[in-house]
């Protein structure tokens, strides 16, 4: 099984390139237009979505739910092709539909402006200026569309394995070069990838069904699937939709169980191995109970692709065999089942891949309040593990602007250390002192601030006010936050 995605610029010669590559490799060619048409025929108003995104001023929040359903349908259709054949997908950043799936060969095809203008002049019979305007308009629309759907700049080469300029390289030579790469182990979909694609397809199909049913179409749900278990997380305000969700999904092909979780927020928990007896599991569960959160488990083994990394290279060579990193792990299943029983399950995903695979697997980071990382890089030495975990935490925090903690920090969040207590007493005392300072000297304070006789000191009183007010607000607010934490209602 293999998968190649091609992201094309307008009139860059991509159609011919995709056809030749498809013939050379014996892969099935799937065009974006085919899948979009099927999406349209399924009843999803694609034109409405496109117009809302492309028409200025951009109302990027309109039709937010509709865009989710659109993407879910596109994803589900693409996955169904991939599970049957080796596929070349010719579209716009198609690999973004399959975030988190490793071993995809991602290609960007471009042509320089002159090449494209000549192509438009020839095919559309436009003069040069109109051709240039046409290309610029299409490019702008594509930028807006991709930014709206995926939040990325699709032209950034970081999103691709290869970028090919068909103005400089003859198509046939480009096809030959890429065919060679496509046949390497690095870009061959593994058993884990196949399973992940299956899970993605199931979750996407469930999302489409929920979005298209009149009883549940307004549901703000997060859906994951793991080996036939479909996990649906929804906010407390929509608790009344739950019976309908079960009804909608009861005949879903490939679904053996449906689990619904009410959650106001989500916690992403990333580990290489999960253990139901570990302290971190109990801490994560305690936070989930306090925050009314769904815990999404992400089991990850990092493959960095470094030449001197013997263990990782061996793993890749044997990728078709069941590796040590088995997709089924009884402890992970046990933890997942315990979370389901507690009503805090948010789904479970397994990824064996690079850092980029894990970053792209984290869709909608705004849904998470916290990321917990622990027990990673287990094949490394203790010091390497600490360093890599620290770097990984920093990268996650920078990318997603979220709080990222390890188990020892999580414990700190749950309890008040001696330092926390000391700071709390300090802040409480400061708030009381500032309060009494004003109220025991009311008349003096008000006279100094308002009386005409102190007009020359007005700048001083204003400076004092501008400093005093935020300091008191901060001190008192921090004290209240700690008090709520003590009573476990923060």
């Amino acid at each position: 099984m293999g998968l190649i995605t091609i992201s094309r610029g307008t009139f860059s010669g991509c159609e011919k390139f995709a056809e030749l590559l498809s013939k050379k490799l014996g892969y099935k060619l799937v065009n974006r237009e085919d899948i979009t048409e099927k999406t349209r025929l399924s009843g999803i108003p694609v034109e409405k979505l496109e117009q809302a995104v492309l028409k200025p001023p951009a109302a990027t929040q309109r039709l937010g739910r509709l865009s989710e359903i659109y993407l879910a349908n596109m994803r589900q259709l693409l996955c169904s092709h991939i599970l049957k054949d080796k596929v070349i997908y010719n579209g716009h950043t198609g690999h973004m539909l399959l975030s988190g799936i490793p071993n995809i060969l991602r290609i960007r095809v471009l042509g320089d402006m002159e090449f494209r203008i000549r192509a438009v002049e020839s095919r559309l019979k436009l003069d040069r200026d109109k051709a240039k305007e046409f290309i610029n308009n299409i490019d702008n629309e594509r930028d807006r569309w991709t930014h709206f759907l995926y939040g990325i700049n699709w032209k950034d080469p970081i999103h691709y394995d290869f970028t090919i300029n068909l103005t400089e390289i003859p198509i046939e030579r480009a096809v030959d070069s890429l065919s060679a790469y496509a046949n390497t182990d690095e870009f061959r979909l593994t058993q884990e990838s196949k399973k992940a694609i299956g899970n993605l397809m199931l979750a996407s199909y469930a999302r489409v069904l929920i979005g298209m049913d009149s009883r549940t179409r307004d549901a703000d749900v997060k859906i994951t699937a793991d080996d036939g278990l479909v996990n649906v997380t929804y906010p407390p305000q929509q608790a009344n939709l739950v019976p309908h969700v079960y009804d909608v999904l009861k005949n879903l092909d490939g679904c053996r169980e449906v689990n619904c979780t009410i959650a106001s927020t989500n916690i992403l928990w990333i580990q290489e191995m999960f253990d139901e007896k570990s302290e971190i599991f109990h801490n994560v569960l305690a936070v989930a109970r306090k925050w009314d959160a769904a815990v999404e488990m992400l089991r990850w083994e990092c493959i960095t692709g470094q030449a001197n990394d013997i263990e990782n290279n061996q793993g890749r060579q044997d990728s078709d065999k069941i590796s040590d990193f088995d997709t089924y792990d009884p402890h992970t299943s046990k933890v997942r089942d315990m979370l389901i029983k507690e009503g805090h399950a948010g789904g479970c995903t397994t990824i064996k891949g690079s850092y980029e695979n894990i970053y792209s697997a984290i869709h909608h980071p705004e849904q998470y309040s916290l990321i917990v990382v622990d027990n990673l890089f287990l094949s490394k030495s203790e010091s390497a593990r600490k360093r890599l975990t620290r770097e990984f935490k920093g990268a996650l925090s920078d990318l997603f602007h979220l709080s990222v903690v390890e188990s020892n920090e999580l414990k700190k969040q749950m309890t008040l250390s001696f330092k926390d207590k000391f700071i709390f007493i300090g802040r409480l005392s400061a708030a009381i002192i500032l309060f009494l300072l004003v109220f025991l000297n009311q008349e003096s304070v008000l006279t100094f601030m308002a009386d005409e006789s102190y007009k020359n000191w007005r700048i001083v009183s204003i400076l004092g006010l501008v400093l005093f007010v935020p300091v008191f607000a901060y001190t008192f607010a921090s004290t209240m936050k700690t008090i709520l934490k003590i009573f476990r209602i923060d």
Partner: protein
Amino acid sequence: MIGEGLFISLHLSNAMQVVMLGLIGGTLSGFIGSGGAFFMTPGMMNLGVPGVVAVGSNITHKFGKALMGSKKHGELGHVDKKLGLFMLLTAFIGIRIAVWVNSTLFQLGNDSHGGSGGSAMGDLYISCVFIGILLIVSIMILIDAFKKRDQGEGPSTKLAEFCAKLNLPPFIKFTVADVKVSFWILSIIGLATGYLAGTIGVGGFIGVPAMIYVFGIPTAVAAGTELFLAMFMGAWGAINYAWAGYVDLRLILLMYLGSLVGIYVGAYGTKVVKEKIIRIVTGLIIFLCVISRGIAVPMYLRKLGYITIDQSWDTVFNGISKGFLYAAGISGFVVILSAVIKAYYRRMKIQASLPTIHT
């Protein structure tokens, strides 16, 4: 009163009422995302605080809160600082004008013909602006709440599209908000936001809808940018009102005792209450606040000598006005609290009755 009738004498009873105002205002603020001034300003006026001091104290109170809230939104990438700074240019002018108008009217009230004016002129002006603006806001919120929406549809962009068609250069591009706006429209909205914030202490109800409906900005960015604006507008308003001697630090501290607690309750309420209910509750509370202010108007007219009624009616009007205000605030508070409790029990019930279903 202390200081020529500017500052009320505080005893336990009215101090607790100010804390309650802060608690309810903070809860509503956390619930609906505004500053809560639409409740706290008239609430303080009902306690006998002159309107100009109520507005000045509230705007200073808002400054402290906005300083903390804006940091969090900034970390989430919800603040378009460029847009905020452009709006600030004219907002500052708006606030300055508002402070001058309020101060002048307060002074004029002391020289008013007929009855004993005192702060009545300023109070009347603030009340009229409050009633006019917030009546429109409450009606629009209620209409919006009851309007049927298409699947996944967000705010209407008709106004934004109309403004885009006007084509009034120069245009300024804002990358975080992802919009292009005419400098003139930006200036007018900034001026209006600043003027209203400086007059009645309410900025969010104008700024946020203006950014969403007139500029076409996503709601999260509008809310974050408004908080960024509120920080500076609050600081500028505080400086201007403090310069004129119209800020009561005691009221600010008492409000914080309530508002910084209430905000947690309100914020949690948003997780468990449906958006439609949030809009309806918001609209109704604001509407009741408007009625409350309207009932107080005859008092000011009598003090200014424009109508002749017995002075004993002041107590009646003030009492009914206060009653409406507290009815609005307390009922909103009770709705939110009961929603939180109801959601808790509903969740327990659902978890017990709907385990994993095998398909």
